[in-house]
Protein backbone atom coordinates (compact mmCIF):
# COMPACT_ATOMS: atom_id res chain seq x y z
CA UNK A 1 0.00 0.00 0.00
CA UNK A 2 2.71 2.37 1.07
CA UNK A 3 4.76 1.26 -1.90
CA UNK A 4 1.95 1.79 -4.36
CA UNK A 5 1.35 5.24 -2.94
CA UNK A 6 4.99 6.10 -3.37
CA UNK A 7 4.89 5.07 -7.04
CA UNK A 8 1.67 6.99 -7.47
CA UNK A 9 3.25 10.17 -6.12
CA UNK A 10 6.19 9.89 -8.41
CA UNK A 11 3.86 9.02 -11.29
CA UNK A 12 1.68 12.04 -10.63
CA UNK A 13 4.66 14.35 -10.52
CA UNK A 14 6.14 13.08 -13.76
CA UNK A 15 2.66 12.87 -15.24
CA UNK A 16 2.05 16.53 -14.57
CA UNK A 17 5.22 17.39 -16.42
CA UNK A 18 4.37 15.17 -19.36
CA UNK A 19 0.93 16.77 -19.38
CA UNK A 20 2.38 20.26 -19.73
CA UNK A 21 4.72 19.14 -22.49
CA UNK A 22 1.85 17.34 -24.20
CA UNK A 23 -0.24 20.50 -23.96
CA UNK A 24 2.47 22.35 -25.84
CA UNK A 25 2.44 19.77 -28.63
CA UNK A 26 -1.31 19.59 -28.84
CA UNK A 27 -1.86 23.27 -28.86
CA UNK A 28 0.57 23.87 -31.65
CA UNK A 29 -0.76 20.93 -33.63
CA UNK A 30 -4.35 22.00 -33.38
CA UNK A 31 -3.71 25.44 -34.80
CA UNK A 32 -0.92 24.69 -37.26
CA UNK A 33 -1.02 20.93 -37.97
CA UNK A 34 2.65 20.86 -37.17
CA UNK A 35 4.54 18.59 -34.80
CA UNK A 36 7.50 20.37 -33.33
CA UNK A 37 10.32 17.93 -32.75
CA UNK A 38 12.26 20.71 -31.10
CA UNK A 39 9.65 21.07 -28.38
CA UNK A 40 11.75 19.10 -25.89
CA UNK A 41 14.59 21.54 -26.44
CA UNK A 42 12.36 24.40 -25.37
CA UNK A 43 11.73 22.48 -22.17
CA UNK A 44 15.49 22.23 -21.74
CA UNK A 45 15.88 25.95 -22.34
CA UNK A 46 13.18 26.64 -19.77
CA UNK A 47 14.90 24.52 -17.15
CA UNK A 48 18.37 25.93 -17.75
CA UNK A 49 17.14 29.54 -17.88
CA UNK A 50 15.38 28.98 -14.60
CA UNK A 51 18.53 27.58 -13.00
CA UNK A 52 20.67 30.43 -14.27
CA UNK A 53 18.26 33.13 -13.20
CA UNK A 54 17.38 31.70 -9.82
CA UNK A 55 20.72 30.25 -8.77
CA UNK A 56 23.52 32.00 -10.62
CA UNK A 57 21.96 35.44 -10.88
CA UNK A 58 20.07 35.23 -7.61
CA UNK A 59 16.68 36.34 -8.90
CA UNK A 60 13.70 35.68 -6.65
CA UNK A 61 11.68 32.67 -7.75
CA UNK A 62 8.65 34.36 -9.22
CA UNK A 63 10.45 36.80 -11.50
CA UNK A 64 12.87 34.06 -12.47
CA UNK A 65 9.97 31.79 -13.40
CA UNK A 66 8.20 34.35 -15.55
CA UNK A 67 11.36 35.70 -17.10
CA UNK A 68 12.40 32.19 -18.20
CA UNK A 69 9.03 31.61 -19.76
CA UNK A 70 9.09 34.90 -21.62
CA UNK A 71 12.63 34.33 -22.82
CA UNK A 72 11.82 30.87 -24.15
CA UNK A 73 8.56 31.99 -25.74
CA UNK A 74 10.51 34.76 -27.46
CA UNK A 75 12.89 32.12 -28.78
CA UNK A 76 9.85 30.18 -29.96
CA UNK A 77 8.53 33.19 -31.86
CA UNK A 78 11.90 33.72 -33.43
CA UNK A 79 11.93 30.07 -34.46
CA UNK A 80 8.54 30.44 -36.13
CA UNK A 81 9.58 33.61 -37.93
CA UNK A 82 12.95 32.35 -39.16
CA UNK A 83 12.48 28.64 -39.75
CA UNK A 84 8.79 27.85 -40.18
CA UNK A 85 7.21 30.81 -41.94
CA UNK A 86 9.65 30.82 -44.88
CA UNK A 87 8.71 27.22 -45.75
CA UNK A 88 6.75 27.33 -48.97
CA UNK A 89 5.47 23.77 -49.13
CA UNK A 90 4.78 22.75 -45.55
CA UNK A 91 4.64 18.99 -46.04
CA UNK A 92 5.02 16.82 -42.94
CA UNK A 93 8.38 15.42 -43.95
CA UNK A 94 9.91 18.83 -44.60
CA UNK A 95 8.61 20.19 -41.31
CA UNK A 96 9.84 17.13 -39.44
CA UNK A 97 13.37 17.68 -40.71
CA UNK A 98 13.30 21.41 -40.06
CA UNK A 99 12.15 20.94 -36.49
CA UNK A 100 14.66 18.14 -35.97
CA UNK A 101 17.32 20.49 -37.32
CA UNK A 102 16.10 23.10 -34.87
CA UNK A 103 16.34 20.62 -32.02
CA UNK A 104 19.96 19.83 -32.87
CA UNK A 105 20.67 23.53 -33.20
CA UNK A 106 19.10 24.36 -29.85
CA UNK A 107 20.91 21.51 -28.16
CA UNK A 108 24.13 22.93 -29.58
CA UNK A 109 23.23 26.37 -28.29
CA UNK A 110 22.41 24.88 -24.90
CA UNK A 111 25.78 23.21 -24.79
CA UNK A 112 27.58 26.40 -25.76
CA UNK A 113 25.86 28.42 -23.05
CA UNK A 114 25.62 25.94 -20.21
CA UNK A 115 28.34 23.45 -21.04
CA UNK A 116 28.06 19.71 -20.82
CA UNK A 117 27.59 19.59 -17.05
CA UNK A 118 24.28 19.06 -15.35
CA UNK A 119 22.87 21.86 -13.22
CA UNK A 120 20.55 21.71 -10.26
CA UNK A 121 18.57 24.12 -8.13
CA UNK A 122 16.80 23.97 -4.78
CA UNK A 123 13.04 23.33 -4.62
CA UNK A 124 10.63 26.25 -4.78
CA UNK A 125 10.14 26.13 -1.02
CA UNK A 126 12.23 24.55 1.70
CA UNK A 127 10.02 22.13 3.60
CA UNK A 128 10.68 18.56 4.57
CA UNK A 129 8.69 16.05 2.50
CA UNK A 130 5.19 15.25 3.72
CA UNK A 131 4.52 11.82 5.12
CA UNK A 132 1.32 10.41 3.65
CA UNK A 133 0.49 6.96 5.00
CA UNK A 134 4.17 6.16 5.09
CA UNK A 135 4.96 7.45 1.60
CA UNK A 136 7.08 10.52 1.02
CA UNK A 137 5.56 13.36 -0.94
CA UNK A 138 8.00 16.07 -1.99
CA UNK A 139 6.88 19.63 -1.55
CA UNK A 140 8.10 20.35 -5.07
CA UNK A 141 5.62 17.74 -6.33
CA UNK A 142 2.82 19.69 -4.72
CA UNK A 143 4.11 22.85 -6.35
CA UNK A 144 4.18 21.11 -9.69
CA UNK A 145 0.63 19.85 -9.35
CA UNK A 146 -0.63 23.27 -8.26
CA UNK A 147 1.08 25.03 -11.13
CA UNK A 148 -0.20 22.51 -13.67
CA UNK A 149 -3.75 22.81 -12.32
CA UNK A 150 -3.55 26.60 -12.50
CA UNK A 151 -2.16 26.46 -16.00
CA UNK A 152 -4.91 24.14 -17.18
CA UNK A 153 -7.59 26.34 -15.68
CA UNK A 154 -6.07 29.41 -17.28
CA UNK A 155 -5.90 27.72 -20.69
CA UNK A 156 -9.45 26.53 -20.42
CA UNK A 157 -10.53 30.08 -19.62
CA UNK A 158 -8.48 31.40 -22.50
CA UNK A 159 -10.06 29.06 -25.04
CA UNK A 160 -13.60 29.38 -23.73
CA UNK A 161 -13.86 32.98 -22.64
CA UNK A 162 -11.56 35.20 -24.64
CA UNK A 163 -12.08 36.26 -28.22
CA UNK A 164 -8.49 35.38 -29.09
CA UNK A 165 -8.91 31.92 -27.67
CA UNK A 166 -12.07 31.36 -29.67
CA UNK A 167 -10.32 32.64 -32.76
CA UNK A 168 -7.59 30.10 -32.21
CA UNK A 169 -10.13 27.33 -31.94
CA UNK A 170 -11.64 28.52 -35.19
CA UNK A 171 -8.24 28.37 -36.84
CA UNK A 172 -7.85 24.85 -35.55
CA UNK A 173 -11.13 23.83 -37.16
CA UNK A 174 -10.52 25.43 -40.52
CA UNK A 175 -7.82 27.83 -41.49
CA UNK A 176 -9.58 28.92 -44.62
CA UNK A 177 -12.89 29.56 -42.92
CA UNK A 178 -11.10 31.48 -40.20
CA UNK A 179 -9.38 33.59 -42.78
CA UNK A 180 -12.68 34.30 -44.52
CA UNK A 181 -14.33 35.60 -41.36
CA UNK A 182 -11.36 37.88 -40.88
CA UNK A 183 -9.28 36.14 -38.24
CA UNK A 184 -5.63 37.01 -38.82
CA UNK A 185 -4.29 33.48 -39.12
CA UNK A 186 -0.69 34.63 -39.25
CA UNK A 187 -0.99 36.11 -35.79
CA UNK A 188 -2.77 33.02 -34.59
CA UNK A 189 0.13 30.86 -35.75
CA UNK A 190 2.58 33.12 -33.94
CA UNK A 191 0.46 33.08 -30.83
CA UNK A 192 0.31 29.30 -30.97
CA UNK A 193 4.08 29.08 -31.22
CA UNK A 194 4.57 31.51 -28.36
CA UNK A 195 2.10 29.71 -26.12
CA UNK A 196 3.37 26.26 -27.02
CA UNK A 197 7.03 27.02 -26.42
CA UNK A 198 6.13 29.01 -23.31
CA UNK A 199 4.33 25.93 -22.05
CA UNK A 200 7.49 23.94 -22.70
CA UNK A 201 9.39 26.44 -20.61
CA UNK A 202 6.92 26.03 -17.75
CA UNK A 203 7.56 22.30 -17.81
CA UNK A 204 11.30 22.92 -17.73
CA UNK A 205 11.10 25.48 -14.94
CA UNK A 206 9.06 23.29 -12.64
CA UNK A 207 11.19 20.19 -12.99
CA UNK A 208 14.49 22.01 -12.64
CA UNK A 209 14.42 21.52 -8.85
CA UNK A 210 13.79 17.77 -8.99
CA UNK A 211 16.12 16.76 -11.76
CA UNK A 212 19.57 17.49 -13.06
CA UNK A 213 19.20 19.84 -15.99
CA UNK A 214 21.56 19.62 -18.92
CA UNK A 215 21.67 20.54 -22.58
CA UNK A 216 20.55 17.06 -23.68
CA UNK A 217 17.62 16.55 -21.31
CA UNK A 218 15.03 17.71 -23.83
CA UNK A 219 14.94 14.92 -26.40
CA UNK A 220 13.49 12.18 -24.23
CA UNK A 221 11.15 14.55 -22.40
CA UNK A 222 9.91 15.86 -25.71
CA UNK A 223 9.29 12.40 -27.14
CA UNK A 224 7.45 11.29 -24.03
CA UNK A 225 5.36 14.43 -23.92
CA UNK A 226 4.53 13.71 -27.49
CA UNK A 227 3.47 10.14 -26.63
CA UNK A 228 1.26 11.57 -23.91
CA UNK A 229 -0.37 13.94 -26.37
CA UNK A 230 -1.09 11.09 -28.79
CA UNK A 231 -2.34 8.91 -25.99
CA UNK A 232 -4.98 11.40 -24.90
CA UNK A 233 -5.74 12.60 -28.39
CA UNK A 234 -3.60 15.02 -30.34
CA UNK A 235 -5.18 18.45 -30.41
CA UNK A 236 -7.34 18.05 -27.32
CA UNK A 237 -6.60 19.94 -24.11
CA UNK A 238 -8.06 17.41 -21.73
CA UNK A 239 -6.55 14.63 -23.81
CA UNK A 240 -3.09 16.04 -23.18
CA UNK A 241 -3.74 16.24 -19.44
CA UNK A 242 -5.17 12.74 -19.29
CA UNK A 243 -2.42 11.31 -21.49
CA UNK A 244 0.27 12.97 -19.40
CA UNK A 245 -0.96 11.65 -16.08
CA UNK A 246 -1.73 8.21 -17.48
CA UNK A 247 1.76 7.93 -18.90
CA UNK A 248 3.37 9.20 -15.70
CA UNK A 249 1.49 6.77 -13.49
CA UNK A 250 1.89 3.72 -15.74
CA UNK A 251 5.56 4.47 -16.11
CA UNK A 252 6.02 4.71 -12.34
CA UNK A 253 4.16 1.46 -11.79
CA UNK A 254 6.21 -0.15 -14.54
CA UNK A 255 9.41 0.90 -12.84
CA UNK A 256 8.15 -0.42 -9.54
CA UNK A 257 6.76 -3.73 -10.64
CA UNK A 258 8.47 -4.68 -13.89
CA UNK A 259 11.92 -3.24 -14.41
CA UNK A 260 13.42 0.19 -14.20
CA UNK A 261 15.40 -0.42 -17.37
CA UNK A 262 12.23 -0.64 -19.41
CA UNK A 263 10.87 2.59 -17.99
CA UNK A 264 11.47 4.49 -21.19
CA UNK A 265 9.75 1.80 -23.24
CA UNK A 266 6.38 2.33 -21.50
CA UNK A 267 5.69 5.53 -23.37
CA UNK A 268 6.38 4.01 -26.75
CA UNK A 269 4.50 0.79 -26.15
CA UNK A 270 1.50 2.90 -25.16
CA UNK A 271 2.04 5.04 -28.25
CA UNK A 272 1.94 2.01 -30.54
CA UNK A 273 -1.09 0.57 -28.77
CA UNK A 274 -3.06 3.74 -29.13
CA UNK A 275 -2.04 4.19 -32.76
CA UNK A 276 -3.08 0.67 -33.63
CA UNK A 277 -6.30 0.58 -31.70
CA UNK A 278 -7.53 4.14 -31.58
CA UNK A 279 -5.40 6.62 -33.53
CA UNK A 280 -7.55 9.55 -32.50
CA UNK A 281 -6.47 8.98 -28.89
CA UNK A 282 -8.49 8.17 -25.81
CA UNK A 283 -10.64 11.27 -25.89
CA UNK A 284 -9.73 12.58 -29.31
CA UNK A 285 -12.77 14.02 -31.02
CA UNK A 286 -14.48 11.42 -33.22
CA UNK A 287 -13.07 10.70 -36.64
CA UNK A 288 -9.52 11.91 -37.07
CA UNK A 289 -8.03 12.17 -40.46
CA UNK A 290 -5.07 9.90 -40.68
CA UNK A 291 -3.89 12.26 -43.42
Amino acid sequence: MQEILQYLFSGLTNGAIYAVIALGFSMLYSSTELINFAHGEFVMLGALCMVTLAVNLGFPLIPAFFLSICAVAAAGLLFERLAIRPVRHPEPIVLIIITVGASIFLRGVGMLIWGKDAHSMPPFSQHPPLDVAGARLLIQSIWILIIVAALTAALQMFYRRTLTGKAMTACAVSKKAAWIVGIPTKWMVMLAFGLSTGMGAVAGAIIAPITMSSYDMGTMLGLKGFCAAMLGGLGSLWGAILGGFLLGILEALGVGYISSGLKDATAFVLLLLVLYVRPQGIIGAGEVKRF
Partner: protein
Amino acid sequence: MNDKAHKIAYAVFALAVILLGWQVDNQYYLQLMIFIGLNTLLALSLNMLMGYAGQISLGHAAFYGIGAYVTAILTTTYQVAPVLALPAAVGTAMLVAWIVGIPTLRLSGYYLGMGTLGFGMIVHIVLREWSSVTGGASGFVGIPPLEIGLVVFASGKNYFFLVWAVVLLCLIMCRRIIDSRVGRALRSIHDGEKAAAAVGVDTKKLKLQVFVFSAGMAALAGFLYAHLVYFISPGTFSFVASIRIVTMVVIGGMASIWGALLGASLLTLLPEWLHAFSEFEMVVYGLILMGVMIFLPRGLTRGVLDVYERYRKNHDR
Protein backbone atom coordinates in the same frame (compact mmCIF):
# COMPACT_ATOMS: atom_id res chain seq x y z
CA MET B 1 16.76 8.87 -67.57
CA ASN B 2 16.53 6.08 -70.05
CA ASP B 3 18.06 2.65 -69.94
CA LYS B 4 21.21 3.61 -71.74
CA ALA B 5 21.91 6.59 -69.53
CA HIS B 6 21.58 4.33 -66.52
CA LYS B 7 24.02 1.83 -67.92
CA ILE B 8 26.53 4.60 -68.52
CA ALA B 9 25.95 5.89 -65.00
CA TYR B 10 26.57 2.43 -63.55
CA ALA B 11 29.75 2.06 -65.57
CA VAL B 12 31.07 5.45 -64.48
CA PHE B 13 30.15 4.61 -60.94
CA ALA B 14 31.93 1.23 -61.03
CA LEU B 15 34.98 2.83 -62.58
CA ALA B 16 35.09 5.49 -59.90
CA VAL B 17 34.85 2.85 -57.19
CA ILE B 18 37.68 0.81 -58.72
CA LEU B 19 39.89 3.86 -59.16
CA LEU B 20 39.29 5.06 -55.64
CA GLY B 21 39.86 1.65 -54.12
CA TRP B 22 43.01 1.21 -56.12
CA GLN B 23 44.53 4.63 -55.52
CA VAL B 24 43.56 5.39 -51.95
CA ASP B 25 45.76 3.76 -49.32
CA ASN B 26 45.01 5.96 -46.37
CA GLN B 27 43.07 3.83 -43.88
CA TYR B 28 41.09 6.78 -42.61
CA TYR B 29 39.81 7.70 -46.05
CA LEU B 30 39.03 4.09 -46.89
CA GLN B 31 37.03 3.77 -43.69
CA LEU B 32 35.19 6.97 -44.46
CA MET B 33 34.26 5.75 -47.93
CA ILE B 34 33.11 2.43 -46.51
CA PHE B 35 30.79 4.36 -44.21
CA ILE B 36 29.50 6.32 -47.15
CA GLY B 37 28.70 2.99 -48.79
CA LEU B 38 26.83 1.71 -45.76
CA ASN B 39 24.90 4.94 -45.46
CA THR B 40 24.06 4.78 -49.14
CA LEU B 41 22.51 1.37 -48.56
CA LEU B 42 20.47 2.77 -45.70
CA ALA B 43 19.38 5.84 -47.61
CA LEU B 44 18.53 3.78 -50.66
CA SER B 45 16.42 1.38 -48.65
CA LEU B 46 14.52 4.17 -46.97
CA ASN B 47 14.14 5.99 -50.27
CA MET B 48 12.23 3.03 -51.69
CA LEU B 49 9.77 3.36 -48.84
CA MET B 50 9.68 7.10 -48.39
CA GLY B 51 10.71 8.63 -51.69
CA TYR B 52 8.88 6.27 -53.99
CA ALA B 53 6.00 4.82 -52.00
CA GLY B 54 5.54 7.99 -49.93
CA GLN B 55 5.51 6.26 -46.55
CA ILE B 56 7.45 8.06 -43.82
CA SER B 57 9.55 6.01 -41.42
CA LEU B 58 11.21 7.56 -38.38
CA GLY B 59 12.41 4.22 -37.06
CA HIS B 60 14.49 2.83 -39.89
CA ALA B 61 17.63 2.49 -37.75
CA ALA B 62 15.81 -0.30 -35.92
CA PHE B 63 16.24 -2.61 -38.91
CA TYR B 64 19.86 -1.55 -39.27
CA GLY B 65 20.28 -2.50 -35.61
CA ILE B 66 18.45 -5.80 -35.96
CA GLY B 67 20.74 -6.76 -38.83
CA ALA B 68 23.85 -5.86 -36.86
CA TYR B 69 22.80 -7.51 -33.61
CA VAL B 70 21.50 -10.73 -35.15
CA THR B 71 24.77 -11.34 -36.92
CA ALA B 72 26.77 -10.28 -33.86
CA ILE B 73 24.93 -12.70 -31.61
CA LEU B 74 24.98 -15.57 -34.09
CA THR B 75 28.62 -15.27 -35.10
CA THR B 76 29.99 -14.48 -31.66
CA THR B 77 27.77 -16.17 -29.11
CA TYR B 78 26.87 -19.15 -31.28
CA GLN B 79 29.94 -19.29 -33.52
CA VAL B 80 27.89 -19.42 -36.71
CA ALA B 81 29.78 -18.63 -39.91
CA PRO B 82 29.07 -15.04 -41.02
CA VAL B 83 27.88 -16.22 -44.44
CA LEU B 84 25.16 -18.21 -42.73
CA ALA B 85 24.35 -15.39 -40.35
CA LEU B 86 23.60 -13.09 -43.28
CA PRO B 87 20.29 -14.68 -44.32
CA ALA B 88 19.32 -14.94 -40.66
CA ALA B 89 20.04 -11.24 -40.06
CA VAL B 90 18.21 -10.08 -43.14
CA GLY B 91 15.39 -12.58 -42.62
CA THR B 92 14.81 -11.54 -39.02
CA ALA B 93 14.56 -7.90 -39.97
CA MET B 94 12.14 -8.73 -42.76
CA LEU B 95 10.01 -10.85 -40.46
CA VAL B 96 9.88 -8.11 -37.85
CA ALA B 97 9.00 -5.59 -40.56
CA TRP B 98 6.22 -7.79 -41.77
CA ILE B 99 4.71 -8.19 -38.30
CA VAL B 100 5.06 -4.54 -37.39
CA GLY B 101 4.09 -3.34 -40.84
CA ILE B 102 0.62 -4.85 -40.85
CA PRO B 103 -0.83 -2.56 -38.18
CA THR B 104 1.56 0.36 -38.72
CA LEU B 105 1.15 0.87 -42.45
CA ARG B 106 -2.57 1.46 -42.02
CA LEU B 107 -1.53 4.86 -40.70
CA SER B 108 -0.31 7.70 -42.81
CA GLY B 109 1.40 11.09 -42.58
CA TYR B 110 2.43 12.19 -39.10
CA TYR B 111 0.69 9.22 -37.54
CA LEU B 112 2.75 6.80 -39.57
CA GLY B 113 5.84 8.78 -38.63
CA MET B 114 4.94 8.41 -34.98
CA GLY B 115 4.18 4.72 -35.24
CA THR B 116 7.55 4.00 -36.81
CA LEU B 117 9.24 6.30 -34.30
CA GLY B 118 7.68 4.36 -31.43
CA PHE B 119 8.78 1.08 -32.95
CA GLY B 120 12.32 2.35 -33.43
CA MET B 121 12.50 3.54 -29.83
CA ILE B 122 11.29 0.20 -28.53
CA VAL B 123 13.89 -1.74 -30.52
CA HIS B 124 16.56 0.66 -29.29
CA ILE B 125 15.48 0.20 -25.68
CA VAL B 126 15.39 -3.58 -26.05
CA LEU B 127 18.93 -3.59 -27.45
CA ARG B 128 20.02 -1.42 -24.54
CA GLU B 129 18.27 -3.29 -21.75
CA TRP B 130 18.45 -6.95 -22.75
CA SER B 131 22.04 -7.08 -21.56
CA SER B 132 22.32 -10.85 -21.21
CA VAL B 133 21.94 -11.20 -24.97
CA THR B 134 22.95 -7.89 -26.48
CA GLY B 135 25.60 -6.74 -24.04
CA GLY B 136 23.40 -3.84 -22.99
CA ALA B 137 24.32 -0.18 -23.11
CA SER B 138 28.04 -0.88 -23.06
CA GLY B 139 27.81 -2.72 -26.34
CA PHE B 140 28.66 -6.03 -27.92
CA VAL B 141 32.33 -6.87 -28.40
CA GLY B 142 34.33 -9.47 -30.28
CA ILE B 143 32.41 -9.80 -33.54
CA PRO B 144 34.57 -11.83 -35.95
CA PRO B 145 35.68 -10.49 -39.33
CA LEU B 146 33.73 -11.49 -42.38
CA GLU B 147 35.01 -14.61 -44.11
CA ILE B 148 33.54 -15.77 -47.35
CA GLY B 149 35.14 -19.03 -48.41
CA LEU B 150 38.85 -18.45 -48.12
CA VAL B 151 38.73 -14.68 -48.37
CA VAL B 152 38.86 -12.73 -45.15
CA PHE B 153 37.47 -9.23 -45.47
CA ALA B 154 39.61 -7.57 -42.89
CA SER B 155 41.77 -4.97 -44.58
CA GLY B 156 40.25 -1.64 -45.44
CA LYS B 157 40.63 -2.27 -49.14
CA ASN B 158 38.91 -5.62 -49.22
CA TYR B 159 35.99 -4.27 -47.28
CA PHE B 160 35.84 -1.20 -49.44
CA PHE B 161 35.38 -3.27 -52.56
CA LEU B 162 32.91 -5.59 -50.89
CA VAL B 163 30.70 -2.79 -49.60
CA TRP B 164 30.71 -0.86 -52.84
CA ALA B 165 29.98 -3.96 -54.88
CA VAL B 166 26.96 -4.51 -52.68
CA VAL B 167 25.97 -0.87 -53.12
CA LEU B 168 26.17 -1.18 -56.89
CA LEU B 169 24.08 -4.33 -56.86
CA CYS B 170 21.49 -2.69 -54.66
CA LEU B 171 21.38 0.40 -56.85
CA ILE B 172 20.69 -1.76 -59.88
CA MET B 173 18.13 -3.79 -57.98
CA CYS B 174 16.23 -0.72 -56.81
CA ARG B 175 16.38 0.87 -60.23
CA ARG B 176 14.89 -2.26 -61.77
CA ILE B 177 12.09 -2.38 -59.24
CA ILE B 178 11.28 1.27 -59.73
CA ASP B 179 11.11 0.94 -63.50
CA SER B 180 8.88 -2.11 -63.34
CA ARG B 181 5.20 -2.70 -62.83
CA VAL B 182 5.78 -2.88 -59.08
CA GLY B 183 7.68 0.39 -59.01
CA ARG B 184 5.02 2.19 -60.99
CA ALA B 185 2.40 0.91 -58.60
CA LEU B 186 4.52 2.15 -55.68
CA ARG B 187 4.80 5.59 -57.18
CA SER B 188 1.08 5.61 -57.85
CA ILE B 189 0.47 5.10 -54.13
CA HIS B 190 2.67 8.12 -53.49
CA ASP B 191 0.69 10.26 -55.90
CA GLY B 192 -2.75 9.16 -54.74
CA GLU B 193 -3.67 6.14 -52.75
CA LYS B 194 -7.33 6.37 -53.68
CA ALA B 195 -6.62 6.44 -57.40
CA ALA B 196 -4.02 3.68 -57.07
CA ALA B 197 -6.61 1.39 -55.51
CA ALA B 198 -9.10 2.39 -58.20
CA VAL B 199 -6.80 1.12 -60.95
CA GLY B 200 -6.41 -2.18 -59.14
CA VAL B 201 -3.28 -1.77 -57.04
CA ASP B 202 -3.45 -3.74 -53.82
CA THR B 203 -2.09 -0.82 -51.84
CA LYS B 204 -1.99 -2.58 -48.48
CA LYS B 205 -0.01 -5.53 -49.78
CA LEU B 206 2.36 -3.42 -51.81
CA LYS B 207 3.15 -1.05 -48.97
CA LEU B 208 3.89 -4.02 -46.77
CA GLN B 209 6.10 -5.55 -49.45
CA VAL B 210 8.20 -2.46 -49.89
CA PHE B 211 8.45 -1.99 -46.13
CA VAL B 212 9.75 -5.55 -45.76
CA PHE B 213 12.12 -5.10 -48.69
CA SER B 214 13.49 -1.89 -47.30
CA ALA B 215 13.93 -3.46 -43.85
CA GLY B 216 15.91 -6.30 -45.41
CA MET B 217 18.23 -3.90 -47.15
CA ALA B 218 18.80 -1.90 -43.97
CA ALA B 219 19.60 -5.16 -42.17
CA LEU B 220 22.14 -5.96 -44.88
CA ALA B 221 23.83 -2.66 -44.09
CA GLY B 222 23.71 -3.59 -40.41
CA PHE B 223 25.34 -6.93 -41.14
CA LEU B 224 28.16 -5.25 -43.05
CA TYR B 225 28.55 -2.68 -40.30
CA ALA B 226 28.91 -5.28 -37.53
CA HIS B 227 31.66 -7.16 -39.37
CA LEU B 228 33.41 -3.94 -40.19
CA VAL B 229 33.76 -2.52 -36.70
CA TYR B 230 33.69 -5.73 -34.56
CA PHE B 231 32.00 -3.75 -31.82
CA ILE B 232 28.45 -2.43 -31.82
CA SER B 233 26.42 -0.53 -29.27
CA PRO B 234 22.77 0.54 -29.14
CA GLY B 235 23.61 4.22 -29.58
CA THR B 236 24.33 3.62 -33.26
CA PHE B 237 20.73 2.55 -33.82
CA SER B 238 18.89 5.24 -31.88
CA PHE B 239 16.22 7.72 -32.87
CA VAL B 240 18.95 10.12 -33.90
CA ALA B 241 20.28 7.51 -36.33
CA SER B 242 16.83 7.05 -37.84
CA ILE B 243 16.51 10.76 -38.32
CA ARG B 244 19.93 10.87 -39.92
CA ILE B 245 18.79 8.32 -42.53
CA VAL B 246 15.65 10.32 -43.24
CA THR B 247 17.80 13.40 -43.63
CA MET B 248 20.08 11.67 -46.12
CA VAL B 249 17.09 10.76 -48.24
CA VAL B 250 15.49 14.15 -48.12
CA ILE B 251 18.66 16.17 -48.60
CA GLY B 252 19.87 13.95 -51.41
CA GLY B 253 16.47 14.09 -53.04
CA MET B 254 13.43 11.90 -52.59
CA ALA B 255 12.60 9.40 -55.28
CA SER B 256 16.08 9.42 -56.77
CA ILE B 257 18.57 6.59 -56.37
CA TRP B 258 21.55 8.82 -57.09
CA GLY B 259 20.11 11.25 -54.59
CA ALA B 260 20.51 8.57 -51.94
CA LEU B 261 24.19 8.31 -52.82
CA LEU B 262 24.59 12.07 -52.68
CA GLY B 263 22.70 12.44 -49.40
CA ALA B 264 24.66 9.62 -47.79
CA SER B 265 27.98 11.10 -48.91
CA LEU B 266 27.16 14.55 -47.64
CA LEU B 267 25.80 13.42 -44.31
CA THR B 268 28.78 11.13 -43.73
CA LEU B 269 31.33 13.75 -44.65
CA LEU B 270 29.60 16.69 -43.00
CA PRO B 271 30.42 15.72 -39.40
CA GLU B 272 34.03 15.18 -40.44
CA TRP B 273 34.20 18.69 -41.84
CA LEU B 274 32.33 20.05 -38.88
CA HIS B 275 34.95 18.75 -36.47
CA ALA B 276 36.76 21.91 -37.40
CA PHE B 277 34.00 23.85 -35.67
CA SER B 278 34.60 21.85 -32.49
CA GLU B 279 31.92 22.92 -30.02
CA PHE B 280 29.93 24.75 -32.69
CA GLU B 281 29.46 21.45 -34.53
CA MET B 282 25.88 20.82 -33.45
CA VAL B 283 24.84 24.40 -34.05
CA VAL B 284 26.18 24.38 -37.58
CA TYR B 285 24.75 20.93 -38.34
CA GLY B 286 21.31 22.06 -37.19
CA LEU B 287 21.52 25.23 -39.23
CA ILE B 288 22.49 23.33 -42.36
CA LEU B 289 19.58 20.93 -41.98
CA MET B 290 17.11 23.75 -41.54
CA GLY B 291 18.62 25.82 -44.31
CA VAL B 292 18.52 23.07 -46.91
CA MET B 293 14.94 22.22 -46.07
CA ILE B 294 13.77 25.81 -46.13
CA PHE B 295 15.45 26.74 -49.39
CA LEU B 296 15.57 23.41 -51.26
CA PRO B 297 12.69 21.39 -49.82
CA ARG B 298 12.94 18.89 -52.67
CA GLY B 299 16.50 18.03 -51.80
CA LEU B 300 19.74 18.94 -53.49
CA THR B 301 19.40 16.93 -56.72
CA ARG B 302 15.90 18.20 -57.44
CA GLY B 303 16.61 21.59 -55.92
CA VAL B 304 19.57 22.28 -58.15
CA LEU B 305 17.62 21.08 -61.19
CA ASP B 306 14.72 23.37 -60.25
CA VAL B 307 17.00 26.35 -59.92
CA TYR B 308 18.61 25.50 -63.26
CA GLU B 309 15.23 25.19 -64.97
CA ARG B 310 14.05 28.50 -63.60
CA TYR B 311 17.25 30.09 -64.82
CA ARG B 312 16.80 28.62 -68.29
CA LYS B 313 13.19 29.72 -68.50
CA ASN B 314 14.14 33.26 -67.55
CA HIS B 315 16.80 33.33 -70.24
CA ASP B 316 14.57 31.88 -72.94
CA ARG B 317 12.25 34.81 -72.60
